[in-house]
């Protein structure tokens, strides 16, 4: 069995239902994303169009993240999923430097690397990934690509010539396919990023890796210190807290630190 994912971009309407479902299912902290839907506008008025590209881990057969991980925290499951063991991860960020798709993030709550696992815990129970279930137009197709009769295999066969992967030149052999994609939607160098493209703010780049309040000393003391319930409050307005003097008196715990 080799599990694969296919997104038909002709069907995707950019509702972000998959994004939200993923966040809820996997309790992905604020400022981090396992799955995101990117909006790209093309053309000039009146011939303009908007395209939506869901982006997640590609579960490569030749995964650079698995290769560079010094402790095998990133490892293959028998079904082809590239899984991550956050208990073993030393958080060196080597995987973040190796993944050509930028699909790995440093979880600000656990301070370990994390990413989409195709909802491996749900697969184990015979369920579909949360994003697949949530998609209202069935643009997400998931299944065994080694089974010729699976939905995904038949979909690939029906769309021969139109099935693409991201960055094939990297020879990572991704198991995440796209139908209806183009260079502009799949190649990050083929479109421009104009500052302020966020929905609720104009933050285009995170200024921290992992928890911004996790100091060097905390890294060593964290296993011995008592942890308050982490509610992610610090990430809701992480940009503003640096400017707002009134927050300076908050304790470290209040800021969501460990």
């Amino acid at each position, binding site marked *: 069995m080799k599990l694969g994912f296919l997104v038909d971009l002709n069907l995707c309407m950019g509702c972000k239902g998959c994004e939200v479902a993923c966040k809820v299912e996997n309790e992905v902290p604020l400022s981090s994303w396992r799955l995101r839907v990117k909006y790209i506008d093309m053309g000039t008025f009146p011939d303009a169009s908007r395209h939506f590209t869901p982006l997640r881990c590609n579960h490569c057969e030749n995964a*650079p993240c698995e290769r560079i991980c*010094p402790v095998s925290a990133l490892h293959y499951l028998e079904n082809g999923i590239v899984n991550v063991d956050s208990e073993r991860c030393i*958080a060196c960020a080597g995987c973040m*430097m190796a993944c050509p798709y930028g699909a790995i993030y440093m979880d600000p709550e656990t301070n*370990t690397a994390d990413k989409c696992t195709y909802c491996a815990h749900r697969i184990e129970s015979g369920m579909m990934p949360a994003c697949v279930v949530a998609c209202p137009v069935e643009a997400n197709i998931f299944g065994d690509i080694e089974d010729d009769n699976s939905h995904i295999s038949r979909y690939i066969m029906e769309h021969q010539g139109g099935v693409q992967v991201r960055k094939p030149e990297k020879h990572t052999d991704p198991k995440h396919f796209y139908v209806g994609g183009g260079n502009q939607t799949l190649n990050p160098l083929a479109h421009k*990023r104009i500052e302020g493209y966020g929905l609720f703010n104009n933050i285009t780049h995170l200024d921290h890796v992992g928890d911004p309040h996790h100091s060097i000393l905390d*890294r060593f003391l964290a296993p011995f210190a008592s942890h308050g319930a982490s509610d992610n409050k610090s990430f809701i307005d992480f940009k503003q807290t640096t400017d707002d003097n009134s927050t300076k008196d908050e304790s470290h715990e209040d800021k969501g630190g460990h």
Partner: protein
Amino acid sequence: MVEHTINATNAVVTMDVALPGIIWGWMITLNMWAKSIGTGVVLIGAFLLYRHKKEDMPSLRWTMPLISFIALNVFLLFTLVDLHQPLRMINIFLHPHWTSAITVGAWMATIFTGLITVMMVISGFDAFPDFRRHCEVAKTVRGNSDVYEKIFPFTVFLAIPVTLYTAVIMAESSARELWQAPTELMQMLLAAFMAGSATLIFISDSWSKEVRKDLALVLAMSVFFSFMMYMGEYFFSFKAAEAEATLAFVHSGGEYNIQFWMAMSLGFIVPFFLATANIKNDNKTLLRFAAILALIGLYLAKDVWLKIPQLLPLS
């Protein structure tokens, strides 16, 4: 112009999440810089011992492992501190994954540091015979003084992969096209020569003039070749799309442009001329000045080269 109005040239991201910024920052730069010193002094020290008599460099036997030990511990400290879960570093030894250059490097660096520690202890007791004269441990160490000479060749041999493995980590970082294995390997080796010769210059006051000439020659040659490689990479690395995009950003006066040229001027061009001049005329002050500039420039150059490919959006 019509080419500006067709779809192919007008794709714009209108909504996306915040992307990660610099993932490997100054701690990794410091890590590489300190490692270059730690391995460089051993490589250049071995070269000097091969070329000259021990009497020409009386303090080298104990200062070389001492400097290397300090630099390696700075390197190891910042390797550890850069981890978000530093206490789990032990997993590299309990659950090693041998395809990772990080694992191989950590093991080699640990063995190398162990050998350097042994050399430092032996040479320290030998250099200061009155220190703990009646201590049994000191007597035992002094009695096994020849161990130093026995392990020295292995240490020199191991210094080469220890200085190079970071280049392999960079090569394994598939997402950063700017880091190409052949050039990074050579840059790491040249950085070790540069840092090693520059550091030894500081303790070469009492050494013979001929030794200092050799140090000046090594410094001049290493900064020259390293500079030429940076120029080649900076201006002509246009065969990989992501490398081109990275450099185009820096070329256009983007972030790190000024730092790069400061590094090239201070760390490579000026030390080259100062060191070259010193091959003919033995001027200790100027040579020391060249060494300081080379070490500062090396840090700045490494910092730029580490950070700029991380500015590129990957998806």
